């Protein structure tokens, strides 16, 4: 089945994903996280996408393209903004689920699979165009960055608590 026509909707896909994620955050009961922590989670998530992209998608390596171009455009920037609500939702369900022990591993494996499936759909819509990249590599990347996000979240949450006491 030829689905290349979907590539014309890459920008729409990014905007719709962003709006859906924001609506979902609005609908979900609040986590009562301090704004400063939410800002830091958003920045961390955006950086987790930006740093590898700046190295792997740059002309020197050129493993993949974002939005059919190796150039950095406005929709690349919006794509990075998309990682902010995703990062927040990842932390949100982690907090709400109150996962401990092996359940954390299960949660990470599940969300890494979800992330990989979402990335594949984004690829079908032409958000990512793989050259020397493979979707299986993405799964490994998610397995690495998601525990990193949780570690980051736990460390800033503790720092915030300590600073509040002082």
């Amino acid at each position, binding site marked *: 089945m030829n689905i290349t026509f979907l590539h014309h909707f890459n920008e729409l896909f990014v905007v719709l994903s962003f709006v859906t994620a924001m609506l979902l955050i609005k609908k979900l009961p609040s986590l009562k996280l*301090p*704004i*400063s922590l939410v*800002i*830091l989670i958003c*920045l*961390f998530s*955006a*950086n987790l996408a*930006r*740093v590898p992209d*700046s*190295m792997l998608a*740059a*002309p*020197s390596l050129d493993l993949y393209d974002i939005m059919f171009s*190796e*150039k*950095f*455009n406005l929709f690349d*920037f919006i794509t*990075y903004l998309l990682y902010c609500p995703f990062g927040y939702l990842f932390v949100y369900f982690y907090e709400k689920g109150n996962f401990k022990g092996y359940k954390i591993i299960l949660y990470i494996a599940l969300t890494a699979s979800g992330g990989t499936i979402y990335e594949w759909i984004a690829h079908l819509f032409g958000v990512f165009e793989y050259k020397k990249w493979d979707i299986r590599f993405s799964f490994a990347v998610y397995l690495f960055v998601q525990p990193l996000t949780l570690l980051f979240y736990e460390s*800033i949450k503790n*720092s*915030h608590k300590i*600073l*509040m006491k*002082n």
Partner: protein
Amino acid sequence: MSLVIFICVTILLIMSFYFLPKTMNILQNTYVLMLAIFLFTCYCSVIYVNLEFWKLSNHVTHYILFRIYQLIVIPILVVWYCNGKNKKMKKYFLIRTVCFSLAMLLLERLLISWNVITYAKWNGLISFFAYLILLLVISILNHWFTVVLRKEGIRVG
């Protein structure tokens, strides 16, 4: 050899930053560091990928050198700059901003001398102003984050 020198300079920079007294708390430092990485990588992409004002060497050593400069050295210098801001240093704000911009420019010149970066339709003066703007933008965004922390009841230096 250039890679070894640059890695040594980076390690010294990290150690100096770690041991020097800081005016900002860990949340502010993390915020400024991540902001600097995000903004500087975007800036570099626009300059050398979109506009092709810089040409980057394809040599592996040069590639690593540039990434260290982009992801570690400049962001740490920005965090260092933001940590120097206190009431005593307020009147030297402009001098400090100019000095840090010059330091960043010097490092860029070092990369040029090693042929990591080659200018095309670009010059050092534009880079200097770009660093100046980067520092000012991050200062403003840091000020806004400081206000957020104060509202949450965190004492900020």
